[in-house]
């Protein structure tokens, strides 16, 4: 297996937490950047899409009431 011998040189107590932390930090950064730099994530988490879907038939039905 490629790089299989690396744990004879790098202590697993150090290397494995560093690897997991690297993955976690990279993943968190990407998702944070998405929430900070786009509008649709906030709208989606606030239920913006559902409100529009519910509001549309009500708005369409409104003229019929008059």
């Amino acid at each position, binding site marked *: 297996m490629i790089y299989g011998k*690396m*744990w004879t040189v790098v202590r697993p107590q150090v290397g494995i937490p560093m690897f997991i932390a690297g993955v976690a930090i990279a993943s968190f950064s990407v998702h944070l950047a998405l929430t900070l730099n786009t509008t649709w994530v906030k709208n989606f988490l606030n239920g913006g899409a559902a409100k529009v879907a519910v509001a549309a038939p009500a708005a369409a039905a409104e003229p019929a009431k008059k």
Partner: protein
Amino acid sequence: MSDHDKVGPTGLTVAESEEIHRNLVQGTQIFGMIAALAHLLAFIYSPWLK
């Protein structure tokens, strides 16, 4: 003394090192599959990329 019994600077043999590495690779593959599934669900059920 075969290559698999050789002890490195960390005190682990090559066989032990390869066992740890196998488990780490397998864990990474399982994590990757779960992440891929989560992204597929996010793609289907959220406005992402639409």
